[in-house]
């Protein structure tokens, strides 16, 4: 039982007696919940590593285990649906541990009144996504809540995979000198959702990039044994993921703004809403932190894969400003890429 009155840590959670939307944003508020509420309560070394999934030793093998819940609104958007996110999200979390994803569970909370046709479409999409990702849905659960208490459908997926021997991929492994690669354009998914919500029409719509990354990761692992960290930058974007890694590993990260791959329409949407692509969610991209001598070769392998064609080298790990991420600006200045607080709000002023 957490004793709120006798905490000695800085008081982030005490300032919020209720959950606010920011706690789900993938930024500092979300991390505060994990760090100050969940980790102390559950308290074990596997959880404390705070990767997106857990690497567990079971009977001589290494098992990867991960879970994710999906509450996105709208259910269908250009480039995908909540179903694609649900399958690909967990597949990707497992792949980020270097594991071969094998089996998934699907748990659904349905709101009374959800049209059966909608559910049918989503189930078909779940099945198709599983086939594409080469995983099997082997168990599941369904609950129904009263109308008005559930927002149509919430989906949780959990997954297991096997981590081959010799693979050690974890946020703590980043070390000064390592190069940072991104597998493609950033901000696509978040802006696809935002644009539907904000009623922006597009000449060519921004499509979510939701995709299973296990194939790309397998190719990369074949090419190099010096991949130290993998992370899929979902909520909170590239900025949040890199900040978490910098803090976990006790290193600094220096990026170069001129190298960030961003689609022109995503850049334009961000301008319009006053948002920064670095903080916008991605659902089919990965960050790889690799030994410098292997960076070129790995980049080449990524370019050969359909999901890595726009891969780029965006920065490196440094020993200065440990725990912080900086970026060289387009005009030669330096700015800090700070941890996002809650969720990114469209800026107007």
């Amino acid at each position, binding site marked *: 039982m957490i004793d709120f009155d006798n905490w000695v840590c800085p008081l982030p959670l005490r300032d919020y007696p209720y959950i606010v939307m920011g706690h789900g944003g993938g930024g500092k508020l979300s991390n505060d919940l994990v760090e100050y509420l969940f980790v102390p309560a559950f308290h074990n070394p596997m959880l404390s590593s705070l990767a997106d999934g857990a690497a567990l030793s079971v009977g001589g093998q290494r098992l990867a285990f991960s879970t994710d819940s999906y509450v996105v609104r709208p259910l269908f958007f250009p480039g995908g649906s909540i179903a694609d996110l649900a399958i690909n999200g967990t597949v990707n979390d497992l792949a980020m541990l270097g594991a071969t994803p094998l089996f998934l569970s699907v748990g659904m909370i349905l709101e009374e009144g959800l049209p059966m046709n909608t559910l049918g479409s989503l189930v078909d999409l779940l099945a198709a996504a599983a086939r594409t990702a080469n995983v099997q849905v082997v168990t599941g659960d369904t609950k129904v809540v009263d109308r008005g208490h559930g927002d149509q459908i919430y989906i949780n997926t959990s997954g297991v995979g096997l981590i081959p021997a010799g693979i050690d991929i974890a946020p703590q492994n980043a070390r000064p000198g390592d190069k940072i690669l991104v597998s493609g354009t950033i901000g696509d998914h978040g802006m696809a959702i935002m644009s539907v919500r904000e009623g922006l*029409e597009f*000449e060519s719509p921004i499509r979510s990039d939701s995709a299973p990354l296990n194939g790309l990761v397998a190719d990369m692992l074949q090419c190099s044994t010096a991949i130290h960290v993998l992370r899929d930058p979902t909520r909170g974007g590239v900025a949040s993921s890199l900040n978490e890694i910098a803090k976990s590993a006790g290193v600094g990260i220096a990026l170069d703004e001129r190298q960030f791959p961003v689609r022109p329409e995503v*850049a*334009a949407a961000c301008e319009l809403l006053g948002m920064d692509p670095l903080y916008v969610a991605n659902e089919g991209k990965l960050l790889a932190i690799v030994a410098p001598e292997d960076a070129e070769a790995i980049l080449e392998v990524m370019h050969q894969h359909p999901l890595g064609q726009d891969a780029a080298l965006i920065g490196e790990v440094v020993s200065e400003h440990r725990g912080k991420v900086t970026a060289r600006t387009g005009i030669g200045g330096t700015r800090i890429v700070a941890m996002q607080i809650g969720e990114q709000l469209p800026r*107007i*002023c």
Partner: protein
Amino acid sequence: MCLGVPGQIKEVYEIDGVRMGKVNFSGIVKEVCLEYVPEANVGDYTIVHVGFAITRLDEESALETLKMFEELGVLEEELYPDQPSAE
């Protein structure tokens, strides 16, 4: 205070007597109120702030400004060719 983004007017029409239009921001099209730029028409660029066009962008001025930047220091370089110039 004034996140104003430039975009090009693609269409002009009226809704309930108010001048509205579709403005294209590098491939994104949004409906914008054009009531306060009566002189701006299809093809013109405007600055849009909170869904309203607040001014028409003047292409000639823009080009003049850019030209001024290009020419900055040109005279200096001609007079003092051995001096270090901009990196």
